[in-house]
């Protein structure tokens, strides 16, 4: 008998053995495809088409669930003979090469999944065609989904087969499947926790680097990442069109062709990587199937060599993980509890593993050396992180090894808080640390050196409040010291000449005058400002369309582009001279918004239309800027707004008193206080003014009628308010 004929015979017989799996899958697809699509088909509109594309597309949660379950069940079922010595003997006695046996069993599961899935799709399309839905607009998503879910199935199926091959009992195989899928992620999570707990300069971006590796180590994390990549509508997706287009069906249908994808197709590199991962898993599976001894059926672990490996790979993170659990739940956070937890965890897990291996509770202490080694290694791992034996916190590359350094001060996070969708201008939270780079090491390196040499003690490095000894403006009052609401940090990405990137997050204790001096030097350098702020980036400011004045309850817009550019030049010059001390110690006087016109960067006229605003502070030292603003923009509150204030709630940060003023009896006082109102904006120092204010105000509509009331939040920015409130009876505390 030729091997191909033998293979076909075996495949056919193996598929026949999976009858119940076939029936269950057919049932699942039947309800999932023809039945659900018929139920979901509310009408023949585009929204139905969109819903169907979503439900049966490549990121469908329902199809994901069915695929994952099908992959695990089919793998367990097709290779179940590996759990029973009777069945193993039956198969291994056959005159068939193990590779051929593997292929026939492996493909049986794959064929069942793919064939039944395809049947489900065809049945659904028939139902939809019968109901008059334009199925051709579904095909791209449905069949792309078919391919992507086939890939997902293969990955989960293969890793489950691998788990079955490595083990000899059903329950252990299930645990093995979870282990192979989640081990890397769990260890990743543990290392993140250890880093956060014990390293003062730990950066979560270091963990991201680890995740870049772990996502290729386990199918689950790979699939999660693939989902993340696909789970966004492509730019040319018809379903991104604005509402009026959606409702204009003839126009919409005419444009549907080729633009119906509701997901972003997986990048070719990622797809190839995923296929390579599948190929590696498959090769390992074949080798293990060939190497696996028949007598392994029924024993916990099929390969004796894997026993100690799996045991110690489990015991180490488990011991350390339980150690930090004890450490964290204990308020003292003492080393004693850390080590107690580590020892207990390592011992318990080591014993449990041996019990599982030998299926005998009395075997728990049988391997005493393993217990000892497990405990010692777990303790060493814990100590490695706790005492930073690897020198994580002390890391500082040589100056000459550095190509540049990306930096992000926590008080500067606003500078990247804008969301331009164009890929070219896609500034986001991490932009400063991924795209921007500071090169003047003569200015920056001393700061980094100082930070590395002065790592704060563990407790100081924890989140909390940090004292700023300098005087901070507090409305009309000044205090020697106030607590700021968040600690200051400096996030750093060292970019080395060898291409390596190393991340660290330093805590800045600005009560240290030397440190403050070093930070000021960086902040006040020309390179820093030109690097960080979008106003110095020509490709952004080319899109400048106007200005908006924030902080006056109803933002004022100014759309003279030419004049706005003139203002920009004035502002840029003054902003460059802004000192670090001024930022820390003074309230911004105004908040100015630079309006960026999306039309200049997004070609699709139907795309979401929204103007971006880049907000910047204006300080008292910006005299030319303020003069320009006073000349060109309305900076005082309009009388209509003041007349609309119905209620004013005031809280005194100094005395703790609160006042509630109502228009009906305090109209004059409200009008007087309104002169000092400033709206809350992001550049204000938290609680930087004495009086916090909440307003309920009514506004006039276009027909000069009072419309619904709205709430505003702000401060009273003058010491005159003290005198005005002197005779007002405060609320009861």
């Amino acid at each position, binding site marked *: 008998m030729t091997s191909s004929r033998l293979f076909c015979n075996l495949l056919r017989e193996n598929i026949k053995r999976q009858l119940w799996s076939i029936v269950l899958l057919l049932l699942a697809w039947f309800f999932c495809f023809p039945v659900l699509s018929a139920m979901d088909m509310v009408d023949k509109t585009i929204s139905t088409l969109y819903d169907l594309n979503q439900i049966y597309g490549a990121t469908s949660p329902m199809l994901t669930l069915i695929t994952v379950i099908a992959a695990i069940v089919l793998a367990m079922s097709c290779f179940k003979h590996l759990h029973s010595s009777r069945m193993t003997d039956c198969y291994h*006695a056959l005159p068939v090469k193990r590779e051929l046996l593997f292929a026939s069993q492996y493909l049986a599961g794959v064929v069942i999944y793919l064939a039944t899935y395809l049947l489900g799709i065809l049945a659904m399309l028939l139902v939809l065609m019968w109901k008059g839905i334009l199925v051709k607009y579904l095909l791209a998503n449905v069949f792309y989904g078919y391919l992507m879910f086939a890939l997902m199935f293969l990955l989960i199926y293969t890793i489950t087969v691998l788990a079955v091959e490595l083990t000899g009992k059903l329950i252990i195989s299930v645990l093995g499947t979870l282990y192979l899928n989640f081990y890397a992620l769990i260890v990743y999570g543990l290392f993140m926790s250890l880093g956060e707990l014990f390293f003062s300069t730990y950066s979560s971006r270091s963990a991201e680097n680890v995740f870049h590796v772990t996502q290729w180590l386990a199918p689950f994390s790979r699939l999660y990442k693939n989902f993340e990549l696909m789970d966004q509508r492509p730019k040319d997706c018809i379903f991104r069109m604005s509402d009026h287009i959606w409702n204009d069906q003839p126009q919409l249908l005419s444009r549907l062709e080729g633009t119906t994808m509701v997901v972003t197709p997986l990048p070719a590199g990622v797809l190839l990587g995923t296929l390579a991962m599948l190929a590696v898993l498959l090769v390992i599976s074949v080798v293990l199937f060939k190497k696996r001894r028949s007598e392994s059926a029924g024993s916990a672990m099929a390969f004796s060599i894997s026993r100690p490996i799996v045991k110690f790979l489990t015991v180490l993170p488990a011991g350390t993980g339980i150690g930090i659990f004890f450490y964290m739940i204990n308020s003292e956070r003492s080393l004693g509890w850390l080590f107690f937890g580590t020892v207990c965890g390592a011992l318990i897990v080591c014993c449990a593993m041996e019990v599982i291996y030998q299926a005998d509770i009395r075997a728990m202490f049988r391997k005493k050396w393993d217990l000892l080694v497990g405990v010692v290694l777990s303790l060493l791992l814990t100590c490695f992180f706790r005492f930073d034996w690897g020198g994580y916190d002390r890391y500082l590359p040589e100056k000459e090894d550095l190509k540049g350094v990306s930096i992000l001060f926590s008080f500067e996070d606003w500078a990247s808080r804008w969301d331009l969708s164009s890929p070219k201008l896609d500034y986001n939270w991490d932009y400063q640390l991924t795209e921007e780079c500071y090169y003047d090491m003569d200015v920056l390196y001393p700061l980094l050196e100082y930070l590395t040499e002065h790592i704060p003690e563990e407790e100081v490095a924890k989140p909390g409040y940090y004292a700023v000894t300098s005087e901070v403006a507090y409305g009309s009052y000044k205090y020697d010291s106030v607590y700021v609401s968040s600690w200051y940090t400096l996030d750093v990405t060292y970019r080395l000449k060898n291409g390596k990137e190393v991340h660290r997050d330093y805590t800045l204790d600005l009560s240290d005058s030397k440190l403050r001096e070093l930070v000021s030097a960086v902040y006040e350098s020309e390179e820093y400002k030109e690097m960080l702020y979008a106003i110095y980036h020509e490709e952004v400011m080319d899109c400048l369309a106007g200005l908006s004045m924030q902080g006056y309850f109803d933002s004022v817009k100014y759309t003279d582009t030419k004049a706005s550019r003139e203002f920009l030049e004035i502002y840029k010059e003054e902003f460059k001279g802004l000192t670090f001390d001024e930022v820390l110690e003074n309230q911004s006087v105004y908040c100015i918004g630079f309006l960026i016109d999306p039309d200049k960067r997004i070609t699709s006229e139907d795309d979401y239309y929204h103007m971006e605003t880049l907000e910047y502070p204006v300080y008292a030292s910006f005299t030319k800027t303020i003069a320009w603003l006073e000349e060109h923009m309305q900076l005082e509150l309009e009388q209509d707004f003041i007349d609309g204030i119905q209620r004013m709630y005031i809280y005194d940060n100094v005395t703790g008193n609160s006042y509630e003023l109502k228009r009906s009896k305090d109209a004059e006082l409200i009008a007087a206080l309104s002169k000092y109102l400033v709206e809350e904006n992001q550049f204000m120092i938290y609680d930087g003014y004495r009086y916090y204010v909440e307003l309920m105000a009514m506004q006039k509509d276009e027909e000069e009628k009072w419309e619904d009331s709205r709430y505003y939040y702000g401060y009273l920015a003058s010491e005159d308010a003290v005198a005005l409130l002197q005779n007002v009876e405060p609320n009861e505390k």
Partner: protein
Amino acid sequence: MIEIEQISKSFADIKAVDGISAGITEGSVYGLIGTNGAGKSTLMRMMAGILKSDSGRVLVDGEDVFENPKVKKEIFYIPDDAYFFSNATPADMEKFYASIYERFDRARFAEMLGQFGLEKKRRVSTFSKGMKKQLSILLGVCAGTKYLFCDETFDGLDPVMRQAVKSIFAKEIEERQMTPVIASHNLRELEDICDHVGLLHKGGILFSKDLDDMKLAIHKVQCAFEANQDVTELLAGFDIMKKEQRGRLYTLTLRGVEGDIIAKMEAASPIFYEVLPLSLEEIFISETEVAGYDIKSLIL
């Protein structure tokens, strides 16, 4: 021809088979006997290419059997507790094996199923233990392989079926030189079918011999001598394997050709003597006792 060369196999710390060597010639019935745990099944699984030996090798027709489909095509292994697919009928099992063994005789299978009274469309799971044994034997015989390995196959068969199976084996041996290898812990089961036997004990083989040779070479003689005769002197010329005495009645197990023994007995002039038939069991007891083993405790 099956050649087993210094084969060993351990499971964890337990040595199941320890340095066994044996040869099985074609067209004969080889019996593997031994107590539970003697290593019969392990040896047979290695011979069937299921288990890989730790050391040594099994050659079937000159080729290593493990992972060798060409050789395994000539082998059908019937385990003690054969596996049948869930909800399978004899017809399903027939289809499965027919798709693997190209010489599977489906007509004969159908015919023999009828002869054994087994229903083709009945689920195997509803069969009794004996019926399952019968089915696996029929599948094995109809697979048309040169070698048929039966592990405790006769255990559970009633005497009638046992005879029927024996006659099928006899026919197959005669017609196509089939070589059954039968493992059993029961000597009496193999006595009338085996040509050659190997005795396994604690993973090792005590001996492997041709049954006819053994039967021809060992004889039991009962004899009685006059009181004044010097029995020791009279029996000095015999190769005595075992001697029992009750009064003046001697029961002797002697090694040698029957004619020579009769001639020597005649010359010794006993009051009477009689050459008795020796059962396989007795032959084994004698042989193994000579080898220093208390076989009664092993196989009886």
